[in-house]
């Protein structure tokens, strides 16, 4: 059974024409997928549907054996807290929390996530330290310091650490590298894939930048998946 499965999903923003119609899209557990699409093609909207922040107008969305499309809002929030890690393009971190507190935040929101950390015989704080160490941020001053003192590249790595905290089943990355320079971008991409693999998390990486796709074994094009876009092109 796939980790994530979309069938005949349709979505339109209120008062706007239909934006997405996806007959089928699946991600297997632990699979790394590169989803390509120009800006404005509905990438973020699709991610919102998958994360359960938006509700599809019709169709089925199943995630980890649960029916997301018909679940209550509260249940979808709980599933997201438990099993998804989200990385944005920028501003992933809460400016008023320390780096460490930002990374351990998912454990505060989800008891299951906290439990999974405990099952590996460690604490959220130690796990945060370990993840940041793996991501090249092993300085105690960084760990306990302010988020705003970090460079953009460092902030994005902290965001990866937070997404990976408690080994969620799916990491959703929405243009996480677009604010980075080429060198930092490649290193970031490598780290993200490596760590997702270590955590056993599936990775859905979304970008308009086709070059990044070379690092992925599976590449999907939103404009192909989305029949509305395909029809418009044809």
């Amino acid at each position, binding site marked *: 059974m796939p980790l994530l499965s979309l069938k005949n999903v349709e979505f339109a923003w209120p008062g706007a024409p239909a934006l997405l119609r996806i007959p089928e899209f699946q991600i297997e557990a632990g699979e790394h997928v590169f989803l390509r699409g120009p800006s404005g093609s509905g990438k973020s909207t699709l991610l919102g549907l998958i994360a359960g922040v938006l509700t599809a107008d019709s169709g089925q969305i199943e995630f980890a054996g649960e029916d997301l499309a018909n679940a209550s809002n509260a249940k979808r929030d709980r599933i997201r807290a438990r099993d998804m890690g989200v990385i944005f393009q920028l501003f992933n971190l809460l400016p008023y929390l320390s780096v460490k507190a930002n990374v351990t935040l998912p454990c505060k929101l989800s008891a299951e996530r906290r439990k999974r950390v405990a099952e590996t015989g460690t604490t959220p704080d130690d796990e945060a330290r370990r993840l940041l160490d793996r991501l090249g941020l092993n300085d105690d001053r960084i760990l306990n310091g302010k988020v705003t003192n970090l460079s953009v590249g460092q902030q994005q790595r902290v965001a990866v650490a*937070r997404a990976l905290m408690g080994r969620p089943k799916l990491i959703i990355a*929405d243009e996480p590298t677009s604010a980075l320079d080429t060198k930092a971008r490649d290193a970031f991409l490598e780290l993200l894939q490596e760590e997702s693999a270590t955590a056993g998390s599936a990775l859905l990486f979304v970008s308009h930048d086709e070059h990044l796709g070379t690092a992925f074994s599976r590449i999907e094009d939103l404009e192909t998946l989305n029949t509305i876009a395909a029809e418009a092109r044809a």
Partner: protein
Amino acid sequence: MSLSALISLAWASLWNRRASALLTITAVAVSVMLFLGVDKLKTSSEESFQQTITGTDMIVGARTSPVSLVMFTVFHIGDPAAGMTWESYEWLQSRSDIEWTVPISLGDSHDGYRVVGTDQSFFEHYQFRDRQNVSFADGVPFDDLYDVVVGADVAAEKGYAVGDEIELSHGTGPVSFQDHSDRPFTITGILEATGTPVDESVLVSLLAIEAIHVGWQSGAPSPLANMMTADDVRQLNLRPHIISSALVGLNDRRSTLNTMRAINTYSQEALVGAPPAQAIAEVWELVGVAGNALMAVSAFVILVGLVSILTSILTSLRERRREMAVLRAIGAGPAQIMTLLISEAVLLAATGAAFGIALVYLASALAAPIFEARFGIALAGTYPGMTDLKVFLAVIVTAGVLGLIPAIQALKNSLADGLSIKL
């Protein structure tokens, strides 16, 4: 996410915006301080007003309304329409149900201050606040015909000391053209401040009142009055004829109604007896309106303070839109986003209110001795009480309700934003 985790998140967020948070807290603190301060002053002045006279079971005078009887006897406001004869006073003294009496004779003034004719029993039986007797800051009670005791305010404002000689005038105007300048009175005592009209009184014996009026029986000085010296007056066989009213203490309070009936139906003269507390409470209902108006105004000031919380959170929402999106992405639900924002409003209000209450007690601790000495008002409640708790809770609940406004706004934003972050 547990409520405690959300509250600690709200704290961290407020701490991050501490400069503006501090301003908001200050606004709330000052408004709460103002409200409680006004309340405290109102309660204290009401208490102090109602305790202008204690221990006196009844005031008796010529027939008039109880309120006006108490007003002129205790507060020296207005004048008795008619006097009570000395014979009626002696009748009161002779009654077995009456333990003590104090005569009060008004109608003269010294430089705008009321001259109160009475006798030694005044110092023994007139009580105020928690059954306190008047005490002397300096000197002793009057004894001689030309002795006078002055209240604390009179002494302070005129700079009088024991041994000074003063004039008393007929009538109650601040300036009298008819000073009895040939009959000098000597100050034998100065009273401690009481916070009652006694502070603004000049106390003399009943015979002194008679002495002032020798030769004035027609209402204007007769040639006789001008010819007599102070010593000549001494030689006259003076005795009191008319007094204004009497303070009465009963042997047994339970007999109040019977005694009142006996006084009200006294056949020789139309008299009225009234317990002072009831009349004073009636007067306060009129006077207290100003206090209530002040309370209403300061309640609105609290509302303004709370609205400033609303303003500060609403203006912060725009820049915090990303923060909300991040929280949603990590798994926070709309309810948690709302709880977070309401917690912030409540935390600001609670901190402000707590500071406000602390400031009121600090201020009243500092001001209490001054109020006591200057106005004779004992500030109510040295320790936080039910009123403070009620205000504290009311402020928090109102802030929580007002907090719904930014919370709903944030909810709308986050639903519109979905999982995308507006840059």
